[in-house]
């Protein structure tokens, strides 16, 4: 019986819908504040006092290595020198950083469970100001995050194009358990992989070199996978790499998660707010607001690299990763109103060993969305003459019987251009019900305007001009068929002012009447 009880509570341990929305929003709020934090710290690193004083730590010999001559015979030799210089600078920094403190609150910026986040105590201690930050870096005292940030300042003081890289850890909005126990992770496991590190531009190889000067103490040129991506259940619990953001010395800000997450599209994407289009747009705007410089050639090289990495990631080898994958789709996951564009072929196969099945996998960009003629019309488009349908589906017709409905791709349609009103009478072409349909602005005749008001029809009648009642949408009532909603009128634009004035007059009259009734 005890087991049954536990199973029951495990089933019930799901938060309600409001809480789900709240978590999603808190995730966004935290993310916004954390990436802003990165930007603030990054701007602190450009402090003139820091660069003046840190510069002295670097002997000329190392400085020269950091700025190698271009070896036209073998560019690789220049890169080697740079890497050697970075290695030596890293050693210098490890000597300079005398005290690596533990995080004041125990977990630093590592991820918290929702329970920990809710039960958190307000901050009691001092706030780290810019001046104390600069002092700490110069003294070489502070936690590992400050140490990594200081290392970026050190490189910048040597005029190296160094970026501050941050992996923010907002709470996991995909964790929908009602009770999220505090994560039990030993300190060493938690801090094994860093949240802050550094990247240096290698102009010879035209790529960013990764340097983790504090945690793993490594330098790497990331090709297919990075050593900084957390591995192992214990390490991942508080360090869920989802957003990796880089800040450069010109205060540019870029999302560079692609470099560090091997399975960005297949797995990591699901835990990012960018998994749906609204979230994607939102995060793009946040990063855009923190990006304060013009695009450079370096951005182009990096985007090219990301493109290659996206290609390299390849097709997932299991069902769950292929669902909602941005690049791949199974034929059976196509929706009713989707087809594969004619002539497209499968790009691979997914083997399901358990069922002994082999499923064809297609590229998502080969998928075409289809709509019926009526659906296209409600978007202000009509079928071109002679266009062919790509698919038929069964729909309930007017008399309740199933009938075939033909579906067309967007290319088979063109913009609907309504007849203009006659001049000077302003006669407007109406449908069989004596209305004009205005589902999108382009459906208003070119020389007319839409006036939306519950009084519009009465006003137009009173003025005595030509008009057409405007159906702008349909109302779906239970059981009944769709009902047209007349929300205003369309009139020729030379009648617009007259109708607006009449509406105002009617409103005034109505208010007067109401007042009189009250009295």
């Amino acid at each position, binding site marked *: 019986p005890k087991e049954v009880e536990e199973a029951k509570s495990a089933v019930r341990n799901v938060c309600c819908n409001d809480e789900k929305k709240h978590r999603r929003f808190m995730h966004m709020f*935290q993310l916004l504040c954390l990436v*802003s*934090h990165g*930007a603030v710290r990054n701007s602190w690193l450009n402090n003139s006092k820091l660069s003046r004083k840190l510069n002295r730590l670097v002997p000329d010999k190392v400085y020269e290595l950091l700025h190698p001559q271009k070896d036209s015979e073998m560019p690789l030799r220049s890169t080697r020198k740079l890497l050697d210089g970075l290695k030596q600078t890293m050693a210098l920094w490890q000597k300079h950083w005398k005290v690596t403190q533990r995080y004041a609150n125990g977990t630093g*910026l590592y991820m918290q469970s929702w329970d920990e986040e*809710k039960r958190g105590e307000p*901050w009691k201690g001092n*706030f780290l100001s810019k001046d104390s930050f600069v002092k700490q870096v110069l003294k070489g005292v502070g936690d590992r995050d400050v140490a990594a940030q200081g290392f970026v300042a050190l490189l910048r003081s040597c005029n190296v194009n160094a970026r501050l890289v941050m992996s923010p850890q907002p709470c996991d909005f995909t964790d929908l358990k009602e009770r999220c126990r505090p994560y039990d992770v030993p300190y060493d496991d938690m801090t094994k992989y860093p949240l802050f590190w550094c990247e240096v531009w290698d102009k010879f190889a035209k790529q960013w070199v990764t340097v983790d000067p504090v945690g793993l103490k490594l330098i790497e040129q990331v090709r297919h996978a990075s050593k900084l991506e957390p591995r192992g259940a214990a390490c991942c619990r508080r360090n869920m790499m989802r957003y990796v953001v880089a800040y450069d010395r010109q205060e540019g800000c870029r999302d560079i998660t692609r470099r560090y997450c091997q399975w960005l599209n297949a797995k990591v994407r699901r835990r990012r707010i960018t998994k749906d289009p609204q979230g994607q747009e939102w995060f793009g705007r946040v990063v855009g607001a923190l990006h304060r410089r013009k695009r450079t050639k370096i951005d182009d090289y990096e985007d090219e690299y990301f493109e290659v990495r996206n290609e390299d990631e390849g097709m997932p080898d299991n069902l769950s990763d292929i669902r909602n994958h941005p690049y791949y789709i199974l034929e059976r996951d196509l929706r009713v109103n989707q087809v594969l564009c004619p002539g497209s072929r499968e790009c691979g196969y997914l083997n399901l060993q358990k069922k002994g099945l082999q499923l064809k996998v297609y590229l998502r960009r080969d998928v075409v969305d289809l709509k019926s003629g009526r659906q296209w019309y409600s978007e202000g488009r009509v079928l071109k003459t002679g266009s062919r349908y790509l698919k038929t589906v069964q729909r309930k017709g007017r008399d309740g019987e199933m009938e075939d409905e033909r579906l067309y791709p967007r290319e088979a349609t063109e913009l609907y251009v309504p007849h203009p009103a006659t001049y000077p009478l302003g006669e407007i072409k109406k449908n069989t019900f004596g209305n004009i349909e205005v589902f999108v602005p382009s459906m208003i005749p070119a020389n007319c305007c839409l006036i939306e008001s519950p009084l519009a029809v009465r006003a137009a009648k009173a003025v005595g001009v030509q008009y057409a009642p405007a159906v702008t949408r349909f109302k779906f009532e239970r059981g009944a068929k769709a009902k047209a909603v007349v929300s205003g009128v369309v009139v020729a634009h030379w009648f617009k002012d007259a109708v607006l004035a009449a509406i105002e007059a009617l409103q005034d009259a109505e208010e007067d009447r109401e007042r009189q009734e009250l009295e």
Partner: protein
Amino acid sequence: AAGAAGVPNQIGLTANDLDALRQVVSGNPEALGPLLENMCARYPQLRQQIMSNPEVFVSMLLQAVGDNLGNLMGGEGVEGDDGLAGAAGEPEPAFNVEMSEEDEQAIGRLCELGFERSLVIQVYFACDKNEEIAANMLFTDYQE
């Protein structure tokens, strides 16, 4: 702090709350969790604003945080003290900067707007010597 609490800004946070948020964001982001929860509860409109217009929020956060926030907060007790804003930092070193003729004049003009000189100087340098932004900030965040 009643006076300061009454000053609304673009995102509708009181000056005290905004300062607290800025300090945590720049100095101690590990304390974000409880602070953000608290703010969500007290400002129901925040959700809509942050979802639909994150840029405004980002720029509010970064305004004046870039430089010398510590001085702004630690120094004059501009905001009075109520908890978070008052708990600001350790004592900061005396404010010591070189001023050019132009700076001197700009600061004079800002003082004429009716703000205390020491406050004007801090805000002016925090705004990277941009007179217009400094004036703006004085009016939005520090008008008693």
